[in-house]
Structure formats: C-alpha cells, structure tokens
C-alpha cells in the first residue's frame, strides 16, 4: 500500500530536474521555465506576505504548485478505511427491515444506506483519480481483518443478526452510535496526521462526515432514550 501512496513531491524528484512538476501551463505553449518570472500576458501574480510584511511577485509555476497539499498517505488511508467503514453501516442497515417494527427505525436505515452508498462512490472516485488502490469494501469480513474505529466485530454482527424486536433496536442503535463515533475518531486522526486533510476535496468531505455523523449520533441517542422509557 505504501508504494501506492507516494506523494507528488516525491514523484517530482524522480523526474528530471523537476521540470515536469513545475512547468505545466498548457496555454502558454511550452510554459514558463521553472523559476521564471511572471508572464507578460497579465498583470502578474502577487503573493502578499504575512500581515505587515511586503508581498512579492511569483511565477505561475510557483503559484500553482500545490504538490505539498495534494494528499498524504494518511489521506489515502482515511479514504480507503472509510469505504469499509461505510460498507458495514450499509450491512447493518440491511438487517433492519426484517427485524424491527418501528417505522422511524426503518426510515433511518434507508437514509443511512443511501447516504453511505453515495459517499462510497465519491471515495472510490477520489482514490481512482489519484491512482490509488481501491479497497475491497467487504475486506472486513475476512477473519484477520483490521477493523476501523467503531466497527462491529464479526461476533457483534452475528449477535445483531440474531436479535429481534426491541432487543434488536437497542443493539442496532448502540452499535450504530459506536460505529458513527468511530468515524468521528477517524476524522480527528486525519486532522491529527501531519500534513493531512489539506486537499480541498478531502477537507470538504471530512468536515462533512463530522457534521453529519454527529447529527445522526444525536438523533439515534434520542431514539435510544425513547426505547428505554
């Protein structure tokens, strides 16, 4: 896996003189040479300094060099891990219709299924477009699988599968709250990894997971309280 997650900076080093990573403006024909000054077609690019400090002019190549904020191995692990994590939520939700009698629980399950499917597709696209390995969404079924935070073990899944009625509802809610809590842990770990979470798409997605799953945890917590009445 590590070989697939080489960062672009590292790749640039492999290419002669780094030119391929720096001069890449298709519109400017050959593009400005690395380190060249601003082009003459516009007013040039200004990069202000920190407050109170002088700005400077920068080349197009330097201005668009996002190689350091593209993605890190931690970003890739987050996306790869989250696919299996989401897949388990779908599997849990699939148990619901035949085991609960509560309409609100059925609706909850449908929504989890749809949103997680949507997001799995997005994560696969993200990985694909960056040339990264797509994990098998069902890898967590393997006996020795390393589970992401909050995921149910095979024993816990079996226990949930065997339950019915109110007992099932309670197990499901407890399990899904823990499962979603694991997603929050994953987001915290992502932002806690040096250099991770800076790519615009992953920043957006991780912020999203955080907001949504916290909301659902609250929602499920309320349902659980209702069950315990």
């Amino acid at each position: 896996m590590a070989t697939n997650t080489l960062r672009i900076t590292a790749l640039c080093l492999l290419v002669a003189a780094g030119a391929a990573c720096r001069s890449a403006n298709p519109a400017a024909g050959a593009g400005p040479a690395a380190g060249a000054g601003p082009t003459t077609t516009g007013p040039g690019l200004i990069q202000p300094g920190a407050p109170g400090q002088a700005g400077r002019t920068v080349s197009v190549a330097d201005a668009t060099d996002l190689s350091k904020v593209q993605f890190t191995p931690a970003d890739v692990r987050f996306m790869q891990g989250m696919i299996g994590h989401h897949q388990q939520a779908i599997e849990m939700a699939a148990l619901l219709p035949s085991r609960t009698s509560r309409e609100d629980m059925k609706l909850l399950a449908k929504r989890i299924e749809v949103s997680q499917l949507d997001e799995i597709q997005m994560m696969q696209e993200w990985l694909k477009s960056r040339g990264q390995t797509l994990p098998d969404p069902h890898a967590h079924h393997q006996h020795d699988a390393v589970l992401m935070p909050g995921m149910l073990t095979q024993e816990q899944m079996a226990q949930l599968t065997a339950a019915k009625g109110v007992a099932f509802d309670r197990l499901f809610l407890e399990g899904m709250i823990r499962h979603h809590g694991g997603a929050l842990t994953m987001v915290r770990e992502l932002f806690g990894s040096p250099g991770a979470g800076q790519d615009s798409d992953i920043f957006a997605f991780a912020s999203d997971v955080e907001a949504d799953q916290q909301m659902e945890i609250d929602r499920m917590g309320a349902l659980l309280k209702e069950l315990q009445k």
Partner: protein
Amino acid sequence: MKSVTTRVWTVAALLGGVVLVGAAQQAPPDPKDPRVGLKPGLRDAGVAARNMELTATMPRPEGFFDPKQPAGEPTGPERTTPPADGKPVEGASGAAAPAAPATPATPAAPSAPAAGAKPAPPRPGGGGLDFANSDIAFAGTNMWVGNFHGFNTYDVENPRKPQLLASVVCPGGQGDVSVHGNLLFMSVEQTRGRVDCGVQGITDTVSKERFRGVRIFDISDLRKPRQVAAVQTCRGSHTHTLVPDQNDKSRIYIYGSGTGSVRSGEELDGCSGEEPDKDGNTALFSIDVIEVPIAAPQTAKIINRPRIFADEAGNIAGLWKGGDHGPGTQSTSRTNQCHDITVFPEVGLAAGACSGNGILMDISDPVHPKRLDAVFDKNFAYWHSATFNNDGTKVVFTDEWGGGMRPRCLATDQANWGANAIFDIVDRKLVFKSYFKLPAPQTATENCVAHNGSLVPVPGRDLMVQAWYQGGVSVMDFTDSANPKEIAFFDRGPLDEKRLITGGYWSTYWYNGHVYGSEMSRGLYVFRLLPGDLLTQNEIDAAAAVQAKAFNVQHQDKLTWPAHRAVALAYVDQLVRSGTIPADRSEMLKGAVTNGDAAQLSMIAGRMGERAATLSGVDAARMKALSAVLTSMR
C-alpha cells in the same frame, strides 16, 4: 457552497409515490425547456438564454487553474470578449491544448511513478475546488472575484471588456470577499491556509503558521494589495458579513460564519469543539463578531461570540437538532452554525441562513444580535443564504441540498428540494409563502442547486438574479411572494458529458446596470438583461438608474430611484402589464411623461395620486410611486 460532498440524503429516490404536502406549489421541471440537451464542454458548451445575453467572459487568469490537468478539456485562456452576437466563444487558439501531452514534460507526472504502480487517469480540467472561483464584491468601477486560491481584481468600467488589474495568490478557501473603503476582507476556512499566504500548506498538526479566519487586505493600491491583518477564528470563516456601526463610522463589524471543524485549543487559545454539555465554551453554536477599526485594521479582533441559537432556558443548542421532520420529509442539518448572514441595517434586521433554521435577528445593536424568529422547513436540507427584498418585507432563503457539489436539479428530483423558500416578514416574524426552483431539469453531470443571488433593482417589482451552479443563471420575480416566476435565464451545457466536474455559477449579482457572474471553472461572466414581455426596456433602464458606490451582497442598503423618466415609464409599463392602466391609453400617457412640460406632469401626477387611493396592493404602491416620481420630475 458548504464544504460538503455528499452530506445530504438522496431521499428523492426513496420516496417512491409519496406525495409531499406543499409539493404542488412548484410545477415539475419542464422537459421541453430550451435548457434541456445542451452540448457539453468547458469552452464550447451549448447555450440557451432568454431575456438576457452574455456581453463578456474571461477565463480564470494564469495562476488560478490547475496546470496539471491539461488532458481532456483545455484549461487555458480564451478570448476575453465574445463576438458581438453575444454567443460564447470557442477556446482561442492558445487554449486548444492537445488532448494528449505533447511532450513528456507535460504531466501525468503525479501518477507516473517509477515504483510500478499503475498511473492515475488524468484528472479532468476545469473542475475541482482548489482553484475554484467563489464570491464577488464591487466598489466603484472595480470588481473582486474570490477564489479558493486567492482573489482577482478587475476593472469593469467597460462591462464589455473587463480588465484584470491584479491576481493575488493566497489560498485557503472559500475566499469569499467583501470590500469597505480601502479594505478587502476574505474568508479562509481550510487547514491549508497560511498566515503568509503560502501555497505549501502546513505539515504540523498544531501550528502558528496556519490561518483560518478573516484576512484583511489594504487595497488602496489596487494593483498591489497588502495583507494588513488576519483575524484567527476557531472554525475558520466560511462566509462573512460586513456590518456598519450606524453611530461610529470609524469602525466596522464583521459577522464571521464558520462551518468547518473546530481547531484545537493548543493551536488557538480558547477553541473547543466539544458538545455544549461537555464544554459550555464550545466554538459550536455561535458566530464571531469581529471589530475592525478602519484606521487601524491590524488591531481587529473578536469582541463577541453571541449564542444566537439559545432557547429561553439558556440552552445554547436551542434550535433544530438535525434529522427529518417525519416520513417522506427532507433531513435537515443541525443548527450549530450559520452558513451566511445578510444584514439590512436600515431596517435593523439580519436574516441568517443557519444550517437547520432560517432566523431573523434584530441588529440595532450590531455587537449583540438578538434573535426575533426562527423557522424550519420540512423540505430544506441546509439553510444556505438569505436575500431581503428592497422594502425589507420579504426574505428569500436558499436550500443548498447536496452541498452544491451534487446534481440536484434532475427531472426526478423533488421540485421543492434544493429550492428557494420565500417568506414574508410580518410583525418581525417569518411567514412562509412559497418555493421556487430552477424550472429546467439538468443532467446528472451538472451540480445544481439554489445558490447566491442579488436583487435586480427594478422599481415596483421584487426581482432576484441567482446562480444555480451548472444549472445556470435565473432571474426570479417574487413580487407576489406566493407565486414566484422566472423571467430570464442563461445556461450552458455541462462541463463534461460523462463525469460530474464541480463547476458552474457560484454567484451572479446585479451591479450598476449589468449582471456579473463568477463561474467556478469557466471564469468571469458579464450579462445584460434584454427586454421582452416580462420585462421592458424602461424597467431595465430604471434598474440601471440606481448607481451604487459599492456592493457586498451580504449587506443590503435600501435602494432609492432617482426621478428619471425611465423610472416613471417603468411604473407605467407595470401598470399596463397588470391591466390597471388600459393598454390603449398607455402610449398617450408615455408620450406625456416623455415630452410633457411641468404643468402636464403635475396634472398627471395629481391624477395618479388620486387613482392610487382607489387601488390596493402592489399596484397602489406603483401608482403612488409613479405620482411621486412625476412630482419630482416637474
């Protein structure tokens, strides 16, 4: 755009035959609309327009698109002015980059590892958020277009030929901008943002180099903006709103709205992202009020974090808890943030689009906004932005269902989802009247949902020009708040036929006679409105007669119209359209308004005044206003 990829349930598919209450309020999209079936493309996409035309377009400047994505769509500059017929241009010759890299020096490099891994397919050009255009601000004859990567300054004195004055590189997204005097304010939320505007991001997880908050630039030299302050906030700033101090012009306030994750207290003192039951000082459930002394912006600081969602018992999480509103309803986000706040100081009100709720606030004390009302809506996923009408008697809220990056204008989508909701303000409370959604279905490769817009100041009517991402531009008439309708549009085909590349119009705003649009990947657009049966040349001229000195869309000023003939004639046209003035008398009346002497104008004004007293509703107001204009024209 909220920083969201797929936050919201794709529930339309789940609903099956369930018919929602209120669904009848909006007709389903029209499959015969001319916007259906437009040719895809970055630069050569098909166009459909009604009652408006393109007058100029400029691609994003160098430094503001991803040079690593040459394959597929060309991403280079195109001609800066379209042909006289207003049709969009094909890529100029320089832009016709070969689909395949001509030399090894053109990258597929990131994915061409020597390590033996399979190369990544090239990422499509023109899309992605890293270099996306965002919100717009205006002052004088200048326009600033925000970008996730910085901002660009244009001179639009000649709206047919905008000139680029400055390109400022300073990443951090979304890059929404506002301008006040010599100061420009910019929102930054992403963790890659740096105090020094560097593009290299931050490697350390805790760093004083990171910047998330509101940047302040001195733009007294338009060509060389200088960063003079950077106010750090816990959640960063997704959007912001300038709020004047009515009693003290030496300072201005900013309402900062953060929607991202809360950073650690280690990085910024006092920041906590805990739930309120764990930490009463949490950065969730508040907005930031920043005070900026105009003469010393470097001393700007947060002076309040009002708990505007608190309930009467003092619970700061007092509004919508998140979730659906019963079977078959939308799932609405939790209210722990505002996405966008629009202030209308002259009426003392602010409208907050706050995730799970729309709220109305009294801002007569701007540092301590007080919530007057909060509404929720079972068809809203995410309360995104708010626009008052010019009288301050209505608010248009938008629902950014899908976060702006998903195709939510499909023919099969619920017509009231991802729409505008129009409210009347009655006794300082919000009263729901109707929904309005783009009436043309879009494809699955076009991200589309209600987004940013502004009023078009036609006197006597409430018009709003609005961006719908790849759904295009639409002008909505909400004079009758219960029956909004579309009166003009402009749309292009999707960026790509097969893939959804995030793009489209982020903002489209009216400014002193033209409509300006920031298209996320295609660049700057300028439009003009054209007369037709739903809008006359007099009405367009009357709107253009309002000349603002500056415009930030989150800050509305009460517009007044000069006593111009066009304004009088606009009212006449409206009264003829509604049948209040018989059509056969309109020419005579218009002749008198155009050529009449003082005595004639006075006589007509008097008669109109008398007639107004016999009318009611909007036509009474128009007749009265007509009388007043004629009186001033004498």
